[in-house]
């Protein structure tokens, strides 16, 4: 096992545990916004997509990469926007919407 890989595995395992701890604390009230937010965050695949699309090594990779950038962008724009929209709807008694 290369040191790089070992480090990556550590990062993965620790991030998973951190995820468990963070998500457990989220109130069930917010489970739908939680899912749309994590969906937007998982659009981080845009990083790999941009690289494949921008390096332009072969026609195939450019086409696949461009499609992937578009798909990720849909989730980035749509995911954050709808999460924000949903959260704006939640208000406490006696308070108006802001």
């Amino acid at each position, binding site marked *: 096992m290369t040191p790089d890989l070992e480090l990556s595995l550590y990062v*993965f395992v620790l991030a998973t545990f951190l995820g468990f701890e963070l*998500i457990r604390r989220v109130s*069930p009230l917010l489970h739908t916004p939680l899912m749309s*937010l*994590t969906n937007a965050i998982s659009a981080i*695949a845009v990083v790999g997509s941009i690289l494949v699309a921008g390096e332009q090594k072969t026609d195939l990779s450019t086409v696949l990469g461009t499609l992937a950038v*578009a798909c990720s962008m*849909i989730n980035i724009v749509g995911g954050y926007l709808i999460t924000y929209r949903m959260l704006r709807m*939640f208000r406490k008694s006696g308070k108006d919407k802001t």
Partner: protein
Amino acid sequence: MIDQVIPLVYLAAAASFVLALKWLSAVNTARRGVIVGVAGMALAVCGTLLKPEIVSYRWIGAAFVVGTIIGVPMALMPMTAVPQRTALSHAFGALAAALVGTAEYYLRTPDIDRFTMGALTLEVLLGFLTFTASLMAFGKLQEILPTRPITYRNQNVMNLSLFGLAAGAGAYLVVRPENTWLFPAFGAMALVFGVLLIIPIGGADMPTVISLLNSYAGLSAAAMGFVLNNKLLIIAGALDGSSGFILSVIMCRAMNRSFTNVLFGAFGQVQAGAVAVEERRTVRSATPEEAAGILEAASLVIVVPGYGMAVAQAQHKVRELYDVMAKAGVEVKFAIHPVAGRMPGHMNVLLAEADIPYDKLAEMEEVNSEFPRADVALVIGANDVTNPAARHDRKSPIYGMPILDVDKARTVMVIKRSMNPGFAGIDNELYYMDRTLMVFGDAKAVVGGIVKELAGGAGR
């Protein structure tokens, strides 16, 4: 120089995502969470665009524009459509990961080491199967496809053998990545498996399935991180993967079912046996006017919304009902079962959209002790989550499922279209209790009628 800065930018992006999830845990900080999440994504995108490997921005720019044009309308959909929208966005996320994995395979093969190839295989397998599975879930939620489970003989055996075959092909590719002919077949098998996986799953199990697909989409992004040796992708993917996993565990627990049962149990088929033993029992029915009279005299009313409320788009009428009753001095609470609706938290966003304060929405554990104190439990479009059989009838398919104890209220009022059984295909004994009043009709119309009566009554 720039090469030394980019890893720091990625690190900041990863930290932003962690903060975003931390702040999302409570309503008063949640919006801050979204903003820091956006900042993290902006950092990640800008950092990547600055990389010297990128020789042309033309296609990336075009894809940004196309993605934005499709993404904005997807964010403006009505709240009732949120489950299908979420399924669709899982499809896009998974497809992106699968396409990048495919491109990387053809770019790197045959000089690809085993470990990288292993991660790439996982990325492509999870990506493609989540893509078609999410599209199928979308179809079922949008009711383009039948929402009842579709089963046929040897279904589970066939599905598992196909998965085994795909996994075998993946393993062979890890050992011998130079066999490029096998790769398209591998991808195709993953795509087909995604479709077959969702066919036997019914509508009411969608909360679990959507959460699981959320998890898969995250894991395939994390696998991409291993392929590209990028820690930011690993962290964001792992956060998403664990989030989806926890949500699906919560959903399974709320139904007292296991993952295996949800995925392979084909729950909610029309059960031939259950229909046969049907006996004619009497129910008491009431008109909206009579219902209004009872509600007016109550001091505590607990409303139990379900998927039927979403289908009838009755949430705004429910809010009017809440307003009238609150004005008349009636205490109104909403009892939310974790699996009410078609995705985790579905009822909460619908009621929040209708402007009902979130501190009136109570979770099952906290509200169940209050039912004996309630004058009226008003069930709007919920069925199986209120069936007392889950507590005592060992033969019932939903035995053991945690339910809302509506039967303990002084009066139970059920707004329902007809006496048809709910999703689990079983009769609800709640409807035959002496204290239960059935108000038949469309939820929106009935609630509207009650509101009109109550508002008129106040003026008399």
